[in-house]
């Protein structure tokens, strides 16, 4: 396995979408390749940071929520 292969397979590796034998090849390569481990760590961190964006959503602005509730009342309750 070469560095270019790691580059191509990194997303599938992080998502556990690869055969165990290919994962093993990647892990063997990465152990001895400093740029690849830095690449792997930073790709993993990138994915984690985006996962975190979804988990820490800020509250919806109050007026947007009020508008939504009024809209739904008008279009759901009053049309029943």
């Amino acid at each position, binding site marked *: 396995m070469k*560095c*270019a292969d*790691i*580059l*191509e397979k*990194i*997303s*599938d590796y*992080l*998502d*556990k*979408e690869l055969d165990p034998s290919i994962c093993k090849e990647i*892990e063997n390569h*990465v*152990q*001895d390749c*400093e*740029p*690849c*481990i*830095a*690449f*792997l*760590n*930073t*790709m*993993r*961190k*990138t*994915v984690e*940071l*985006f*996962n*975190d*964006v*979804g988990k*820490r*959503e*800020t*509250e*919806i602005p109050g007026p*947007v*929520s009020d*508008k*939504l*509730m009024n*809209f*739904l009342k008008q*279009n*759901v*309750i009053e049309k029943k």
Partner: protein
Amino acid sequence: MFMYHYMQNRFLAFSISKMEDAEKETYSKEQKAPDKDGLLVKQVLEGDYGAFEQLVKRHQSRVFYHAMRFLNRQEDAEDILQDTFLRAFKGLGSFRGDSSFLTWLLKIATNNCLMKLRKSKKMDIVSLDKPVEIDGSELPREIEDWSNNPSDQRLEDETREFLNKAMARLPEDKRMVLVLKDVEGFTNLEISETLGMSVAAVKSRLHRARLAMRDLLSHYFEEREVNYKRNIQ
């Protein structure tokens, strides 16, 4: 030799943390919400509008910010928000619980966003800044490892703001896949069904999007480090 052991330990730590993440994920998926949302859906179907209001309150933020990431304009995101919950209410009988209620809602919201984008034909003018170039054909020989950069609340908030701007610089098709997968936690199959593309195309776009985001984050952390050093001198 020291470097070899250092890298080996770093890699081991990486593998263990991924295993722990996977366990946490399984645990939380088993524990969470079928139940609160499922129960509310049942109550709505029995005619309880108050239960629908509770569903709206539980998920309105996720739907609103999801639409903001796709459309980048509050007015448009508000339209999507309203339309999504209206459609959800009307189609609630078709919710079978195969995926979570939130995933079902986000699929409706995504379809609404796609329709709005197609109608307004502004597929690419949503970028806030110069669109990011996606290459990813070669691995540079020297890569800065910023994955363990120290952080605090202020820096985390700043980083999140940067991530939102960075996403907006991605081409439309790749941004959608990244948002659905890495922000909202859809599976590749769910994305392929929602966006009407093959799983292979989803994977390919996701990979390019992540590479582009990693590059932007590398520049961001590099700059932050330089500023930090400048400030403490």
